């Protein structure tokens, strides 16, 4: 069954976990893929929401973050939009290289790309689309 969820929340880091849990509650039909939801989707979505709150909206509570989630068959698509000016995702360095691995930041986009099947930004860079495929019979592995 296809389902859609749309929610908006204020740019407060304390609201991120509640937003993620609200989305995950809409995915009961995906229980067979518990690990991919628990790890890949949960962490990937948390990173997208954190980027939107912290960098997109600058933690300005008057600027909402919008989340749209569509579950179609075995594919979950989440679109996260902030009110910011956007950024160039290609300019973000690889955090796993020897010169970057000891830095305290810069792992959010990397984790999204590693844990999800697709990560797309719009041209402005303020809207990211995450795609996770829950392929039949493939519920245990964490690699996307």
């Amino acid at each position, binding site marked *: 069954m296809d389902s859609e969820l749309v929610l908006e929340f204020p740019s407060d880091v304390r609201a991120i976990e509640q937003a993620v849990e609200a989305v995950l509650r809409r995915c009961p039909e995906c229980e067979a893929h518990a690990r991919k939801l628990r790890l890949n989707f949960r962490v990937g979505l948390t990173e997208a929401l954190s980027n939107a709150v912290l960098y997109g909206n600058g933690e300005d509570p008057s600027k909402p973050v919008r989340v749209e989630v569509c579950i179609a068959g075995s594919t979950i698509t989440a679109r996260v939009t902030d009110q910011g000016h956007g950024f160039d995702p290609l300019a973000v360095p690889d955090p796993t290289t020897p010169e970057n*691995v000891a830095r305290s930041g810069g792992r959010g986009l990397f984790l999204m790309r590693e844990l999800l099947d697709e990560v797309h930004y719009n041209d402005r860079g303020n809207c990211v689309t995450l795609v996770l495929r829950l392929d039949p019979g493939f519920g245990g592995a964490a690699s996307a």
Partner: protein
Amino acid sequence: MGFSVSKQNGVTVVDVEGQLIVGNRQELKTRVLEELDGGERKFVVDFSQTGYIDSSGLGVLVSLSKKIREQGGELRLSSLNEDLRTLFELTKLDTLFRIADSREDALEGF
């Protein structure tokens, strides 16, 4: 969701209960730095009660480890579940930290 701090054999042990994410990372940083300022140098962060960590949580661990090393101390990690180990391996942070299977292993020889 929260943190509890205890002392075992001269080591400060911090249990992360729930998540270590952008919303509570500052609380962990404050708790550990208070102990560091108080003279503690040996730290274990135990994840046996932890659901998940995001990049902000990973970042605060990196930052704290650096500050503790600068003071001549060490931060060890213990009891990571399969999901958390995956995150440390993906980000190559498993090369940066001493990660023990259990709290007892982390405390051994500290």
